């Protein structure tokens, strides 16, 4: 399945959503980048799952500490696809995708998603600050992405980030292990 997606979260200082948009089509990358910028998001684009993982420091080359990798599990993922196949959509959502949007993506889609994600962020932060004091996610400068819009072919190594928990017996396209625990917010990229 060729799907695209987004991870998102807000920059705690400026409250601007930082989105990592992943898409192998240059045209779609340009369009999504513009859609996001016009919706006041900070945007980073990647042309493949591999590039996205590199950017996030999760490609195995960079030493990512436990705190950073567990923080990535909090990043919401939105899948974008031109294929409107209900079983696949359900599967994405069951495996932890925040949402699934059908291409071509419109301004109203981005606005709605942004609102949804930022509202969730505010709720989460409110919960955290009431129980633990102000908790700021400290991420590397290069890894401060809050949302990933994910569009990559099934064999993408991004599936290593997104593979389901160990209890899931279905095969993953990529053999690399994912960071442990928390099945929520994880997605398996599949055909």
């Amino acid at each position, binding site marked *: 399945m*060729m799907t695209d997606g987004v991870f998102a979260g807000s920059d705690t200082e400026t409250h601007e959503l930082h989105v990592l948009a992943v898409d*192998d*089509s*240059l*045209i*779609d990358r*340009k*369009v999504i980048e*513009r*859609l996001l910028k*016009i919706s006041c998001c900070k945007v980073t684009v990647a042309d493949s799952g591999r590039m996205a993982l590199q950017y996030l420091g999760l490609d195995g080359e960079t030493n990512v500490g436990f705190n950073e990798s567990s923080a990535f599990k909090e990043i919401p993922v939105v899948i974008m696809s*031109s294929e*409107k196949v209900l079983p696949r*959509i359900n599967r994405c*959502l069951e495996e932890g995708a*925040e*949402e*699934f*949007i*059908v*291409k*071509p*993506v*419109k*301004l*109203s*889609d981005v606005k*709605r998603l942004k609102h*949804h994600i930022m509202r969730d962020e505010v709720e989460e932060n409110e919960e955290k600050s009431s129980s633990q004091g102000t908790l700021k996610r400290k991420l590397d400068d290069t890894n401060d992405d809050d949302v990933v819009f994910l569009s990559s072919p099934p064999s993408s190594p991004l599936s290593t980030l997104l593979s389901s928990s160990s209890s899931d017996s279905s095969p993953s396209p990529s053999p690399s292990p994912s960071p442990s625990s928390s099945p929520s917010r994880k997605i398996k990229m599949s055909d």
Partner: protein
Amino acid sequence: MNVEQLKSRFKGHYDFMVAEKFLDEQFSQLQQLQDESTPDFAFEVVSLFFEDCQKIFHDLDRALEQPMVDFKTVDNNVHTLKGSSSSIGAARVTHVCIAFRSFCDEHNLEGCLRSMQELKRETALVKNQFEILFKLEQQLLAAGGSITLPVKPSPQSNDHPWFM
């Protein structure tokens, strides 16, 4: 010709393209993404699309010439074209891609070859139409006019979130 007349010509051609399904409402989304910092966004994206087409057509022609046609490769290329054509609102091209993919699924070489011809034809047609549209837009802007394309409130795929 004054601004009003130029505006009317532009709008007239745009309406024609929509009526003939050369364009759908996605193109007006592209227009909405233009501002002072990116006044030629729609033109740039559409140009990129046609450049992309040339590369993809080349790959498709090659793939379809093979003694043992790899329908997966053909399908991947057509899928890409389907996505990018729908991103710019080139509805007729998208439509041909959908049919083309069915032929790939069936491993129907004859169907694929026919689709290939249709794809080239439709792409050439819409390219021509776009050239006229952008020229009219240029003339209008040069005369001091501006464009606001209607954003049709048609039922949207993503109006209701998919999340459960």
